[in-house]
């Protein structure tokens, strides 16, 4: 008999060029994301100048780990969405929460077709005076928290971030911007020491009421003093 006109694309892909951890932390006045700038081809640090943080609009930044071709695809979709929205010219822009919700739907639907976008994404933003920090992964699992980390960061950085937040919570406050920045850099350093797919060049994105600031690429200073003690 004849085939229908539908072509099935192969399922359950494997990631090719990947990014490692992305870190996110709320501070008093906004939210901060940090990620290194390497795209790994397996164990090879093949592309050393890739930006994994994306400014979506003046109130939101996203950071992605996982397959970077899929991240570029997401970037194209998001950039087109923002353009379409600007063309509407009604003064509204996508809130970080709305973007988080949209991303969740997209990623969950792709996973349900067994053709996932192989990414874990952190969404950070400030909208209507409130900070937002959310997580979505390739399965469509989504949640918000005061501190987030993807990949290796979930094991190595998240405990450090949470400990700091608990300490601040006892004094009924969030870290200051400088404290948050210093903490993220400390976490990135730990990840550089312990994550074999990391790199010592990184970027930081800070979102406040005033908007989005993307800094980088910056370089991490590693401390190898213990090498002399051992």
């Amino acid at each position, binding site marked *: 008999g004849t085939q229908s006109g539908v072509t099935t694309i*192969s399922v359950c*892909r494997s990631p*090719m*060029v990947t990014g490692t951890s992305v870190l996110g932390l709320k501070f008093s006045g906004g939210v901060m994301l940090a990620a290194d700038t390497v795209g790994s*081809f397996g164990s*090879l640090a093949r*592309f050393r100048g890739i930006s994994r943080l994306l400014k979506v609009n003046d109130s939101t930044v996203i950071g992605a780990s996982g397959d*970077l*071709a899929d991240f570029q695809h997401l970037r194209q979709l998001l950039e087109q969405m923002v353009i379409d929205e600007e063309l509407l010219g009604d003064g509204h822009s996508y809130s970080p929460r709305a973007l988080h919700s949209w991303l969740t739907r997209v990623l969950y639907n792709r996973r349900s077709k067994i053709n996932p976008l192989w990414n874990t994404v952190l969404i950070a933003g400030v909208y209507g005076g409130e900070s937002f920090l959310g997580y979505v992964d390739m399965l469509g699992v989504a949640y918000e928290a005061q501190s987030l980390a993807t990949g290796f960061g979930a094991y190595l950085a998240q405990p450090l971030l949470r400990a700091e937040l608990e300490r601040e919570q006892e004094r009924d406050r969030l870290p200051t911007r400088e404290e948050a920045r210093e903490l993220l850099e400390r976490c990135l350093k730990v990840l550089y020491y312990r994550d074999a797919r990391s790199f010592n060049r990184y970027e930081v994105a800070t979102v406040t009421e005033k908007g989005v600031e993307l800094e980088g690429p910056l370089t991490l200073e590693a401390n190898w003093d213990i090498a002399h003690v051992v």
Partner: protein
Amino acid sequence: TTIMAVEFDGGVVIGADSRTTTGAYIANRVTDKLTPVHDRIFCCRSGSAADTQAVADAVAYQLAFHSVELEEPPRVRTAARLFQQSCYRYREELSAGIIVAGWDPRRGGQVYVVPMGGLLLRQPFAVGGSGSSYIYGFLDATFQPGMSRSQCQEFVARALALAMVRDGSSGGVIRLAAITEDGVERTVLAGSDLP
């Protein structure tokens, strides 16, 4: 395969080895892996020969059409984007690592890499293919931005020669091409000419 492309002020230098293998047998020892997709835009092909030839043919057609509509030479970035669209959409079916390089009046010499998976990235220089693994160290140690055309040619020739010695899937002759506003100059380095 080892393929490479380097940008310089005024154009690009591209290079490739000439070995095509079916397993351990060398099916073609004088392959041309530098394929034009337009007058001043080439692609360097690595991976499955069938896949890359098919994609390159499709892109060459699209570019020719686009160029007629545009009434001017197409941008290198457009060519790279066309490669990316096919390589990303059919990423599961294809085995293709492509470097797109050329010259256009707007941005001069440009090198774009579309590795397996369908990522698109612009770089000052790019390498690909199985042989590239063996020369990353050499490239990191030797590359300097702002090289002249002849320095780039020497850099590419040396790098390819080193890779071809170590990689069993690379060998034969070195095919080089320099693409500038004035056109494309192709050279072949064979036998004793190899660095």
